[in-house]
């Protein structure tokens, strides 16, 4: 290894590793250790119950759907914010960060208050037969809320730097505005859209605070996986069961992390090739 020109390598790297070690690596190792100790059959004994499987299905199913909705809504919002000039544009742009900055518990009780049968929206929706609070629809709504800024903020810089020459070429060849969007812009945005999707998905799968209030945590119906982890630790002192479920969630996070790293490489190569 070449000698470093600047000093401070040992100090800065040592401190970084010490914090990472005590806060991240050691806890990660403890989770993996506890999960491995269970063995495959012990792990399945914890995971394979009707209640846990229902929660995993809800967490992953709702998160996949919420991330899809986020991509559609996020594309609309990002497109409008980047391409058009209108009154309140700056306010709208600033607002997008709200789910990042609003504490999840606060978002959770606010959504619940809005959609509860006596809330502003709930009192209008429930007579129409649309129940949001304490249903799976509520879980989905909370997940859409927390995931939206990931898609918008991932898309915005890419949309801003999108080369206009291809669009202009399509225009001169007689492509209409929707055709230009679907055949030229959308394919260029694809890697970015997928990155935004993965980010929103990762957040939605692990989300706790925004979801637990509006979900109502009804047995087999609206219990999310993070809620069951909390329940196992908090009232059942079942650390092994919690670790078994936690390992599943962690595996999902790691798969998404790797997917995002690959996507980034793809985007990068794309940018160089152009």
């Amino acid at each position, binding site marked *: *290894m070449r000698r*470093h020109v*600047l000093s*401070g390598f040992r*100090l*800065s*790297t040592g*401190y*970084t590793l010490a*914090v*990472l070690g005590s*806060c*991240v690596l050691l*806890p990660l190792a*403890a*989770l993996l250790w506890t999960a491995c100790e269970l063995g495959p059959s012990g792990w399945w004994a914890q995971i394979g119950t009707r209640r846990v499987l229902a929660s995993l299905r809800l967490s992953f199913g709702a998160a996949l759907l919420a991330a899809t909705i986020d991509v559609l809504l996020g594309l*609309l*919002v990002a*497109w*409008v914010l*980047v*391409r058009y000039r209108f009154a309140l544009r700056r306010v*709208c742009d*600033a*607002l997008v*960060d*709200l789910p990042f*900055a*609003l*504490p*999840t*518990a*606060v*978002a959770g*009780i*606010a959504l619940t*208050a*809005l959609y509860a049968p006596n809330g*502003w929206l709930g009192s209008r929706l429930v007579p129409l037969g649309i129940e949001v609070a304490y249903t799976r629809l509520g879980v989905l709504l909370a997940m859409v809320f927390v995931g939206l800024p990931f898609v918008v903020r991932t898309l915005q810089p890419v949309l*801003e*730097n*999108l080369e206009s020459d291809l669009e*202009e070429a399509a*225009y001169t060849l007689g492509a209409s505005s929707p055709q230009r969007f679907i055949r030229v812009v959308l394919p260029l945005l694809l890697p970015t859209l997928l990155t935004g999707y993965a980010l929103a998905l990762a957040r939605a*799968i*692990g989300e*706790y*605070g925004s979801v637990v209030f509006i979900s109502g945590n009804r047995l087999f119906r609206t219990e999310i996986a*993070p809620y069951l*982890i*909390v329940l196992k*630790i908090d009232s059942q002192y079942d*650390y092994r069961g919690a*670790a078994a479920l*936690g390992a599943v*969630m*962690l595996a999902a996070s*790691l798969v*998404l992390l790797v997917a995002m*790293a690959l996507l980034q490489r793809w985007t990068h190569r794309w940018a160089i090739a152009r």
Partner: protein
Amino acid sequence: MAAVSAMVSIGGRPSWSIRVARVFLVVAAVIVLAWLLVLPLIAIFAEAFRQGWAFYRDAISQPDSIAAVRLTLTVAAIAVPLNVVFGLAAAWTMTHFNFPGKALLGALIDLPFSVSPVVAGMMLILVYGKYGWLGSWLEAHGVQVIFAVPGLVLATVFVTLPFVARELIPLMQAQGSEQEEAALTLGASGWQIFFRVTLPRVRWALLYGVLLCNARAMGEFGAVYVVSGHLRGLTNTLPLQVDQLYQENFSAAFAVASLLALLTVLTLGIKRLLEWRHGEALTGR
């Protein structure tokens, strides 16, 4: 920006149908934002003040709420500086040196953002809890981590770990090491280089990172919930107090929640101001 002006130039004056489509898209986007984001924000304040000023004042000034405010400030006051030092150290390592495993270190720094906060809290219990790897040893030495303030700090540090590093690393990468190396040839010591060359160049990005880190630190719920044991007046931070009040006294919960919502609005305002006034200093471009 080039794309925008080019778009405008395409076709000269846009046709009637395109103008209608634009208006439609803008209105749709505004409706999405208003429905999904603005409405919940308004609901918090409306619920908080539903029973009047006097009730609001009482709710936020009762002893448990004051204790929660104090604990939230304490935890943030420990966790945020820890993350500032971590972010600076990590950025210094990641941008000025090459070493094996650097990519892995970068991935590890970002990892806490992808882990569910609840899983993070559980992992900390497995290490620092009573039956955890280090818990019994720590307890024998009179240190309680889980269900106490150190656990809250650890959980907060975990979930906010990448904030400062994430702002600094790309910026310092864009700036390069030339100025630091120039200072070195002029005889500056390592600390002199850090305090007089590096730090002034990254100060706005550092402040930006601190702002986001602080907002998350004060608002974290899931990770802190797991490790706190929710002992009222002892280990309840503001978000945990909101949760507990929500079970008993709806309006009081929203009154306390409105304090956090206020912090959010303030944070977003300062964030915008920083981006507007010091946008170039934040990205190095």
